[in-house]
């Protein structure tokens, strides 16, 4: 123990339980008397795809050559009931993010980029903007508890319908948009007074439960003459039962968002403490579909912490048909870029740490409604960046798939993977590397 006069910084010891972040939050709560609301997804570490490794080619398994030997990446979503399923060129889609949460040019960029590489974007908790429909060749229209902006004309203009039961960041919570982001245009689209702190309902207004969801899906199909695929989006919680229930309710595809999934605004406690990680969620969902004999017939789209082609490939290997990106797309467009370091410092943050998407002061012009800030964001450049990033995700996934001898990324399978940790092995149900041990699974030879 140092004496009272000693100033040796090396003897200072931070508490694990009460570290600086926790101290700052407790003191903020004491000052403000309200919970911490922020954007971004879970920041704490949970088991993820990084804890899995591909086995790759060997004497017993041969790789495919790059370039010459095809590794296909196309995926069709909505084959179960829809007259016009979605045909995507790559197994990566852009997740639902609202106009309101994002600026108009940011939404436009997502549409441009996705269309360039042949994939879809998704509307969010605010409705469909004309720009979005114009710039996105394939557009999925979300039906959320709030029903902001919901109307039959837009429903008919959409290429697919996504009924949102929940999202990974806040399963059981509704949307949130704080007053500084409720601009005139947002207010008009959402039929709200300008400048209020908007909180959406957490349940749908006209159905509760899978038995009534079935009837609701029926209504949406009737209204759109059975043309469009109907997806059901869930935050990962009781995933095994949820997948079965979504299937029984009549979904064409299931969108499953792990707890790491991002949000534009919600309570920090929700983000960090509710839902299961994407890793176990994918495996559970895939197994549930296999049990029902509907794997690949009811498609599985997985999101929540997809960052690299390795994440894409691993999610597909565990049984997903496609993945969806949200946070990564915003980062690709410039969120948290070191170029903005000075700007972040002015608003009390730093590049690489910025998560105040709820505040609407984004210097990158992405998660803001401020005209001046939004004007900084160039939608054509943003579109190029998205297209580039999506290409890299695809190329990386193909590289890994080829190394495992696959001519289509969908031929990746759990047996191509091993785990680095006991948790990941148990969650993904693949063996701990170098062993034949899968924790929790009996009868191993």
């Amino acid at each position: 123990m140092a004496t009272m006069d000693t100033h040796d910084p090396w003897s200072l010891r931070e508490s694990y339980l009460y570290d600086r972040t926790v101290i700052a939050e407790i003191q903020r709560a004491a000052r403000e008397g309200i919970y911490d609301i922020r954007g971004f997804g879970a920041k704490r570490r949970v088991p993820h795809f990084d804890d899995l490794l591909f086995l790759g080619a060997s004497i017993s398994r041969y790789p495919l050559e790059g370039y010459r030997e095809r590794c296909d990446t196309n995926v069709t979503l909505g084959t179960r009931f829809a007259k016009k399923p979605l045909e995507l060129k790559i197994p990566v889609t852009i997740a639902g993010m609202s106009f309101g949460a994002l600026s108009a040019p940011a939404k436009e960029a997502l549409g441009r980029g996705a269309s360039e590489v042949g994939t879809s974007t998704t509307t969010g908790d605010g409705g469909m903007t004309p720009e979005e429909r114009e710039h996105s060749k394939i557009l999925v229209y979300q039906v959320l508890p709030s029903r902001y902006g919901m109307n039959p004309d837009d429903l008919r203009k959409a290429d697919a319908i996504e009924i949102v039961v929940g999202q990974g960041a806040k399963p059981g919570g509704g949307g949130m948009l704080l007053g500084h982001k409720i601009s005139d245009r947002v207010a008009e689209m959402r039929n709200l007074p300008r400048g209020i702190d908007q909180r959406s309902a957490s349940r749908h207004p006209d159905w509760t439960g899978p038995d009534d969801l079935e009837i609701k899906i029926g209504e949406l199909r009737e209204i759109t003459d059975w043309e469009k695929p109907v997806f059901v989006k869930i935050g990962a919680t009781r995933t095994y039962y949820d997948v079965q229930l979504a299937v029984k309710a009549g979904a064409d595809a299931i969108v499953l968002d792990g707890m790491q999934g991002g949000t534009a605004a919600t309570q920090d406690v929700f983000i960090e403490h509710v839902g299961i990680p994407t890793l176990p969620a994918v495996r559970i969902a895939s197994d549930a579909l296999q049990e029902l004999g509907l794997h690949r017939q009811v498609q599985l789209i997985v999101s929540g912490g997809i960052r690299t082609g390795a994440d894409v490939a691993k999610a597909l290997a565990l049984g997903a048909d496609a993945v969806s990106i949200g946070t990564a797309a915003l980062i690709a467009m410039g969120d948290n870029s070191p170029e903005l370091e000075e700007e972040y410092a002015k608003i009390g943050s730093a590049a690489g740490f910025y998560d105040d998407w709820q505040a609407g002061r984004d210097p990158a012009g992405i998660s803001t409604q401020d005209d001046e800030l939004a004007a900084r964001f160039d939608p054509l450049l943003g579109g190029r960046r998205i297209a580039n990033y999506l290409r890299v995700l695809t190329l990386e996934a193909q590289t890994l798939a080829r190394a495992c001898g696959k001519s289509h990324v969908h031929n990746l399978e759990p047996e191509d993977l091993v785990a680095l940790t006991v948790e990941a092995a148990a969650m993904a149900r693949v063996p701990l590397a170098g062993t034949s041990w899968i924790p929790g699974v009996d009868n191993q030879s």
Partner: protein
Amino acid sequence: MSVAEAAETTAVEVVDLATTPLRELNQRLHDLAGGADGPRRWRILTPNGAHAVACGIDAELDVVIEGHVGYYCAGMNQLATVRVHGNAGPGLAENITSGTVVVDGNASQSAGATGRGGLLVVHGDAAARCGISMKGVDIVVRGSVGHLSGFMAQTGRLVVCGDAGEALGDSIYEARVYVRGEVSELGADCVEKDLRAEHRAELAELLLQAGIDDLEPSDFRRYGSARRLYNFHVDNAY
């Protein structure tokens, strides 16, 4: 016009759901969108509680349904006038954008849910969550409404000639609620407001549109948002 033409304009297309699949009926109604040629007047028999009857219409049609319907009758209605000679299940005229939907009997919960425009008239009672999350629709209920009616109601007018159940207008935004009978309990941020001349005029207009001519606007009370929940309250205890 000729006799034949006159007959055509008043001809009613009759569809019996006991023998015609619902999909066929709805498709035929949808095909009349955008001014396409076809019958303007429809009569639908034997609904027997079927769901999504006459949903997604986008044309100035006159549709009469003889009997009780299930969920989501006239869901997302545009321009059409749909009349139900019976009771309706949950989600009647949900998300209606324009046009008129009239029910002779009772409506189950979430009647007019998230409706954006047009008029919904229920001659009997509407159950819980009538006008939930409404975004511009006008709803007139001759009887009573159940609990959580007008919950998160954003814009539009809800008129209740009978009583209102608990938590009326909970978390209401700018919609206006008029009740003639008893209100068992007001929801969070919902308060009684003055019934001024412009409100009596508004009420009179709505009652007229609903075909109700035996009630006095002055006998109603007006309810709306206290606007205390519009923003989070942040202290600054340094």
